[in-house]
């Protein structure tokens, strides 16, 4: 039994796997709108269904062998491409600021090689969280040593630091003056319920909305 198999080298970006699926339909695209995750998964399955399970291992090992600069570039590229699935719902001003912060955080000069690269799943949770909160004030963002996004609002006495974990989970630490009392709190929960969970602390103090 013989058959032909077309394989795309994944070393530049995992999202490149999107292209072959839709290119059969006419004008080839370089991106797939809101279907990034599902089409990516379909293509992984497609590789498996052709009977070569080792292919995925090879692809992963190519990715892991990349230099630090290439890994940082790939992380920035994936994060920016994922942001584009929100379309025009992210204003130019927000987009510029987020991308500028990403470029700064993931610059080779600033990066500690022991840290994990930005986790795309955490970035997705972060953006989902932003659409749940829709803050008027843009957060400062950072990356934890395990690759999760941290968003911060406020000042020294009243601050909110929120770590976004994969799967729309978040953990947050806050300090606020409530009824003339200084309160601190550390909690975790679903990103989708952030506003309800933060309501007792009048979160407009941080978000400006």
């Amino acid at each position, binding site marked *: 039994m013989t058959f032909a198999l077309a394989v795309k080298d994944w070393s530049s970006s995992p999202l490149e796997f999107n292209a072959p699926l839709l290119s059969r339909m*006419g004008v080839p695209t370089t991106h797939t709108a809101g279907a990034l995750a599902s089409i990516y998964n379909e293509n992984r399955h497609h590789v498996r269904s052709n009977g070569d399970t080792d292919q995925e291992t090879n692809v992963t090992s190519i990715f892991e062998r990349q230099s630090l600069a290439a890994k940082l570039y790939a992380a920035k590229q994936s994060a920016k491409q994922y942001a584009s699935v929100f379309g025009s719902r992210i204003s130019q001003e927000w987009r510029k600021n987020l991308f500028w912060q990403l470029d700064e955080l993931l610059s080779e000069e600033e990066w500690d090689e022991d840290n994990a690269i930005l986790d795309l799943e955490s970035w997705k949770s972060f953006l989902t969280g932003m659409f749940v909160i829709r803050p008027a004030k843009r957060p400062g963002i950072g990356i934890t040593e395990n690759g999760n996004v941290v968003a911060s609002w406020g000042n020294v006495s009243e601050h909110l630091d929120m770590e976004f974990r994969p799967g729309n989970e978040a953990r947050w630490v806050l300090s606020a003056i409530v009824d003339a009392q200084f309160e601190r709190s550390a909690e975790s929960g679903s990103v989708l319920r952030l506003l309800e969970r933060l309501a007792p602390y009048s979160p407009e103090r941080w978000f400006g909305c």
Partner: protein
Amino acid sequence: MSAEFPARQYRFPPITEAVVEFRFASPISRDEQDQISSKSAKYYPNLSEISNRHFHIEVDKGTAEVTETTTNLRRTNADENEIFLITPQSFNISQLPLYEGWVAFRQRFQRDWEIAKSILGYRKLERLGIRFINRLDFPFEDDLVHPAKYLNVYINHPTQYGVMQSSAIQTRYFVEDLNANMTIQSATVESPLPKHLGILLDIDIGREDDVPQKDDDIFTYFEQVRLFKNQVFEASITDATRERFSSDLRLGS
């Protein structure tokens, strides 16, 4: 169609990707690909090389050999939302959000066409294509989204089937006025917005017969395609969808 469905301009269009394709009748050499790539680097500083390898596998013998390797050069701007894909047969100019309107997009692909032409000289075009992928996000109402409320393109099915979990349709047409084929696809996809369903509306128009070859004819043709594409889009959606384009579900103003 134009009188019934006038094209409109939206401040926040739902376009998730706009692509223009120039496909040539004869191949672009690797050297020519590299020259076009270098000349466009000032607009697209990032470069990825994508190797396409074709394998011939003989399962019974346990052997595999590479029968063909081609390379696509993918150049992007710093924000990763402007893409210039140079393949051995074509080049594609793609705009991801923010889509800042047809005029800005046309200026970009005219500029890139000039760059390619300065390297390739005259090269016969085999296909001209335009593709616009829109994703419309609709809120769940009692855990359901009713496509008929928002779209004129959807699957009608007997209620006995139960609640549809997902759908995908593809229809093809020949557009006489453009001498082109049009493919419309619509599918449910995950929306990145909480408690929303995404529905793709993908309009792909390509001409492979009597393809315009002169610059003026090419860009006049693209203008015609764009007007038709807009009318198709308007015909595909309802007023309930138009109202959602001014929705306040945004980050920033």
